[in-house]
């Protein structure tokens, strides 16, 4: 019990961070499930959403800038896919990964150019950024909201995938790309939809994340992006519930490590976890084992 009360702020922070990672991780896992591509640029889309919010808030009131940010982020994700990934769909796997890395590089450099390398401060969103007390621990309201919002969105997404036509198309494409195409499924629409959903969730994730950590730099997307990816791998790449659970676990463990005073290793923890997962259960918690036909 003692452990719980001293560490409650950290656990709460962990659940909250976990939720934010989950929203980003879903984007990774969905894209990988369909295209077998690690979208290195996804973390930078998350960062770009943060910057878009900052700049739009200076000229628009909050109730416009939030939807504006979301729409623009979705547009960004969609455009990246059309420009950098679609042309390389028949190229060897390495080419498309390199394109993703190149895109990530480009977005970071554009951000660096626009911001001049200075840290930009995220606007304080009233009500969500207010401090509240939970069970004796002081935290921001956004910390409490995040997990609920995340779970709500995940449920909505799972419903979409399992009960709509486009969802069924997405599932078909992730199982067998070519056959789905042969069966008349419009691949381009399915892929675009995947990126749109992923970017939408990343935008929401960024609003929640930066309400907590208000400093936005061009490279801020790197770490959360990588961690979200590890979460997706841990949960079983291609599995949405897996990615969400993985993200919460990483978020909570990471913050407990900080609570124990080992802050320098909170980042490294994610990578150690990654190495362990890849070595002992590469298909993750919920992934499927596939045998190669010779």
């Amino acid at each position: 019990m003692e452990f719980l009360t001293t560490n409650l702020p950290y656990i709460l922070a962990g659940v909250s961070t976990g939720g934010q990672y989950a929203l980003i991780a879903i984007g990774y896992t969905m894209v990988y499930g369909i295209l077998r591509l690690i979208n290195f640029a996804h973390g930078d889309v998350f960062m770009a959403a943060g910057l878009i919010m900052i700049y739009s808030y200076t000229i628009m009131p909050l109730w416009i800038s939030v939807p504006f940010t979301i729409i623009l982020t979705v547009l960004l994700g969609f455009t990246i896919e059309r420009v950098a990934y679609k042309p390389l769909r028949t190229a060897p796997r390495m080419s498309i990964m390199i394109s993703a890395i190149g895109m990530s590089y480009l977005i970071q450099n554009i951000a660096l150019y626009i911001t001049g390398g200075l840290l930009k401060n995220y606007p304080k969103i009233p009500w969500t950024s207010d401090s509240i007390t939970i069970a004796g621990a002081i935290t921001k309201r956004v910390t409490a909201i995040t997990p609920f919002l995340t779970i709500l969105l995940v449920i909505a997404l799972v419903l979409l995938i399992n009960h709509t036509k486009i969802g069924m198309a997405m599932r078909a494409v992730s199982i067998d790309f070519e056959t789905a195409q042969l069966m008349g499924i419009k691949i381009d629409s399915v892929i675009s939809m995947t990126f749109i959903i992923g970017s939408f969730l990343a935008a929401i994730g960024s609003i929640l994340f930066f309400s907590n950590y208000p400093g936005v730099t061009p490279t801020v997307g790197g770490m959360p992006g990588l961690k979200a990816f590890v979460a997706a791998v841990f949960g079983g790449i291609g599995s949405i519930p897996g990615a969400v659970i993985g993200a919460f676990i990483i978020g909570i463990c990471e913050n407990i490590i900080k609570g124990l005073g080992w802050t320098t290793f909170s980042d490294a923890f994610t990578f150690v976890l990654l190495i362990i997962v890849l070595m002992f259960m590469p298909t993750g918690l919920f992934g499927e084992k596939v045998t190669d036909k010779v």
Partner: protein
Amino acid sequence: MENQITKKPINKDMMISFTLLALLFVVLVILELVLPRTSILFTVLKKGAIYALVAVSMNLLNGFTGLFSLGQAGFMLLGAYTYAIFTIPVAARSQVYQYFNGGLIQFTLPVFVAMILAGLIAAGFAFLIGLPVLKLKSDYLAIATLGFAEIMRALFQWDKIGVITNGSNLLRKYPVFKTTIFYFAVSGICIAIIVLLINSTYGRAFKAIRDDEVAAEAMGINLAHHKRLSFVISSFFAGISGALLAMFQTTIQASQFKSAMTYEILLIVVIGGIGSVTGSCISSFLFIACSEWWLRFLDNANLNITSLQILRPGFRKVVFSVVIMMIVLFYQKGIMGDKEFNLGGLIKFFKTLPSQHKLPAHLKLAKTKEGK
């Protein structure tokens, strides 16, 4: 391409390559005598030579063996630190390791021994993580090696082992070489060794693994052993390039060996052509020249044409990134494709310049049949 059966006489292409290299050294010596020490040309040449070595080492792994590894920065870090740690003069150690009571290591190794050790330690780590990591599929291998590099970066900043690594502080005061020839010589020798390896029976085995590892295994090539071999050798040379980088910069710090460094090396390899050593070398120098020197004017705010202030620091990198994306998207084979430099090819290149856009038939076929 080997078309001699019984022996390989030194053919015309090799003679020309050797002559060009000899000329290169002469030119370098002259430049050193003529230009001032601090000329930007030397910075570009030195850094270019260093990146050429690490790019070729990455190409050995990615381009010739088909293993998509993103751990290069981690091995450079190991090499750089090994060199620095073992060559800081004992007298200077208390200054450098000021927060760690002079540090644990109180002896120095001769410079060249330290350099070789740099490569060996990097290779040693590669050996340790090799077996489990190399079994992973390509995307997972990329992430696992990336993760390894990040863990190394965090580890070397940890103050608990600061008595060896100096924690998050700089390492400095170790012996450095100032002449450009030195960097070219070391790089050159290492690259020559890699080329010898690529053209040997083991190099061919690596290419077989890249082209079709199921067939390679069926023809008796042990995948685990050969993949690890390629990984270890590649890391050895990455370690040496790390040592060279340490000398070039005169100070090193673990935090600079970010994954961004590996991405830059990867982009250099891609631009030069995956599977071409000359491509990696050429593109290294081009990349460094562009990023350090030629495109500098794009950052100069004084040259603004419109009132919008387009040209300011950072614009250079944006232009650069766009150019890279263009090459990745439209010119995927890179500058050299998978060919090496030969005089016949160069002459043919100029002759066919008007009809350059046509790919030879068999390359076109290979391009569409490629897959993983």
